[in-house]
């Protein structure tokens, strides 16, 4: 059973814009991204939206739907009350390009700052050995689809100066996936503290709440990293040891 629904969609670019209202038919089983495509095909050919896989695996179609940051391809129309008007806006933490599309290049700059995986030498038999129970946690982190919804809701990043001091939950997660990798042979703790700003996170868990992959970003990645930093820098014995050895 199809029904007629009303959508308010942000139209505009960096110089400004306004909400446009579209009435369109919604069929059973449709997700918000289907509706956007229908509006695009029938009423507004040039309505800009970024998307790709349409199955929640590529993380391209992040936007704010009735004020909530979500993937539009995974938001079914039947989660809304009958007759409810649906408002679609671009994510707020990144600069607008046009309509529902934002410039997320800052995130790519952050990724570039993370030093790549540095493998320990292979075993005598030429194999790299890791056990499943030791990689479960890292695999949880590697489920990340880089939708940047966590970055979008992070209070620290939303704050005007936040981006200068803090890399955001996505990249602490990435650093955690390297730091906890059984075969990574790099010491990442000093830069996690000093350059990526692990101390800036105040554990409100907003990032975890919006993660479409249900990764426990705060509990499983950020807090353990903070603990490793504390162990290294604020443990009095270790502090003393550093003073004597001159290590970082």
């Amino acid at each position, binding site marked *: 059973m199809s029904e007629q629904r009303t959508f308010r969609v942000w139209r505009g*670019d960096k110089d400004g814009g306004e909400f446009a209202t579209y009435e369109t038919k919604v*069929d*059973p*089983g*449709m*997700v918000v991204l*289907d509706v956007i495509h229908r509006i*695009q*095909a029938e009423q507004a*050919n*040039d*309505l*800009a*939206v*970024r*998307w*790709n*896989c*349409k*199955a*929640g*695996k*590529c*993380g*391209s179609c992040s936007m704010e739907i009735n004020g909530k940051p979500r993937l539009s391809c*995974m938001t*079914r129309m039947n989660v809304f009350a009958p007759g409810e008007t649906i408002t679609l806006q671009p994510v707020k933490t990144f600069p607008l*390009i*046009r*309509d529902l*599309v934002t*410039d*997320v*290049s800052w995130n*790519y700059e952050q*990724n*570039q700052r*993370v*030093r*790549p*995986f540095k*493998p320990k030498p292979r075993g005598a038999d030429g*194999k*790299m*050995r*890791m*056990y*499943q129970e030791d*990689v479960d946690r*890292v*695999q949880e982190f*590697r*489920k990340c*689809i*880089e939708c940047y919804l966590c970055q979008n809701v992070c209070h620290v990043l939303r704050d005007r100066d936040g981006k200068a001091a803090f890399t955001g939950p996505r990249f602490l997660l*990435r650093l955690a996936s*390297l730091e906890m*990798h059984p075969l*990574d042979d790099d010491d990442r703790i000093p830069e996690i503290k000093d350059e990526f700003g692990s101390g800036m996170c105040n554990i409100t868990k907003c990032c975890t709440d919006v993660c479409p992959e249900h990764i426990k970003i705060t509990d499983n990645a950020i807090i353990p990293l903070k603990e490793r930093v504390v162990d290294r820098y604020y443990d009095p014995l270790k502090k003393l040891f550093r003073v004597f050895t001159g290590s970082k």
Partner: protein
Amino acid sequence: MDVNEIQTIEHDVVVIGAGGAGLRAAIECSAQGMNTGLIMKSLLGKAHTVMAEGGMAAALGNADSRDHWKIHFRDTMRGGKFLNVWRMAELHAREAPDRVNELEEWGAVFDRTKDGLINQRNFGGHRYPRLAHVGDRTGLELIRTLQDHGIHQGIHTHMECTALELLKDGDKIAGVAAYWRDTGRFVLLKCKAVILATGGAGKAWRVTSNSWEYTGDGLAMAYDAGAELMDVEFTQFHPTGMVWPLSVRGILVTEGVRGDGGILKNSEGKRFMFDYIPERFAPETADSEEEAARWLEGAEGARRPPELLTRDVVARAITAEVKAGRGSPHGGAFLDIASRRPAEFIKRKLPSMYHQFMELAEVDITKEPMEVGPTLHYFMGGIRVDAESQQTRVPGLFACGECAAGLHGANRLGGNSLSDLIVFGQRAGMGATEYVRANPGSVAPDHDAVKEAFRRATAPLNRESGESPYALHDELQDTMGANVGIVRVEEELKKGIDDVAAIQKRAETVKAHGSSQYNPGWNQALSLRSLLVSAEAVARAALMRQESRGAHTRLDYEGERDEWLDYNVVIRKSKDGSMDVEKVKRPEPDAELKRIALSELEPLEEEVTAERAKTREVADV
């Protein structure tokens, strides 16, 4: 328009497409010291490779030490119904293990065996558990690994940049005309070599697992530049796509469901695949539910369940059941893993499938069966390339991954795609590097051609009025679904060709509204041409091949015909601009490869066991 005023970027090599193949090619070029540009229509890390679920096939021998490249090669040839390019199938089987191990050194975290090695799972057509995997999100792992490694190799990535046309200097590649999607501005990329890694053209069909990017850009650009297309009649319909809700129809349900024990049933509750076992595979397929159950438990000597027959066989079986009136409520078959495996197992081994059905269809796959049906998934055919270097017949033009032809023949085995990307991505990178080194002279694209490329691109925006590009795309999908679908017949194929020609004519006067800045309407208008070239090529090749082989099924020419075994259908652009379709004799295969591929399984297994024992002796000495 003054060409000197257009933004110009110079590279040695430009790679078009940043999925697994493009990224791997770019990494290789960069590692070899080439100034490498990588352009992509989407953002980095979003390419359709992320959708690959099941795994990448490589005879690592971790899950079953009896595996060997020769067995992988034999499986690939048989899956491809012996139409594969022999040398490519050999290179792929030999080199895949090294390429997979290399990923691990770059940070990939595959699922593990009990011994802590890369675990491998069973898949259709593979004799042994062979697919290195990460749950059911192996593609994401591949792309993220290549991405995070690649950004530190000095590659210049150009995101949301769409290639329009290849530019030449005489007969040699000299650059790419492209535009930035966010601003709509043009950019001229000057280079000596181009590697196409653009994927297939699944978007010419409505029910497809492919994303919007799959518009056949590479096929059309190569064709226009003078390269040949081959085997494009072989379009793989993956047997298990979602069929409900309508808006997600076509989205992939991984073969891993069947690999991990899932079975197919019709509306009468019958496990129907036992009725569709082809003669060639009968000796290696279980003939009773009881034997199939023993196989799943890993019993020695038990043969594989028929749900794991090759994709063409399973897709046709589902289609036949639906046609006979035994389909599921929404026109598919039931895929049941709920009654076969505990809920915890399903959630651990198939987390994205669980998630996908729960969120998009409100179906709990640990409790209920899924409804599935065939979906256009993959182009076995594509740009004809040299097996070693991946070069086309145009000097400086290379192709790898799905957009290249050869490895898969008439049908691709699941898991052979991700390994294809890394094996031939690496080879294309080497090939392009060697070409650039061997051709030190400078090249410059012809100015008139540059102007003409950009003029053609702006035409849909400048037109006063015209048809909607969305409407034309819709009509193309209608005709391809109806006339160039999973089962084909001469009359319909001819109708398809006529329809495509009519849409081609109308596409010349299509209108895009609005400005050029991040304008999906304009982008759609520009992708019509490559979609239409690809669609025409598939239809014409399908009409020429008068037999049924692999993924190409002709109702009017049933069964494989010996007279076609030695021929590929090759397509090129003729001087007058029309499409030339030719039946081309295949070269005689290497005798040793032929022996391996045609060998019975048991003697071949004995042979590799003996070989292995010998190697071990040598090592012990």
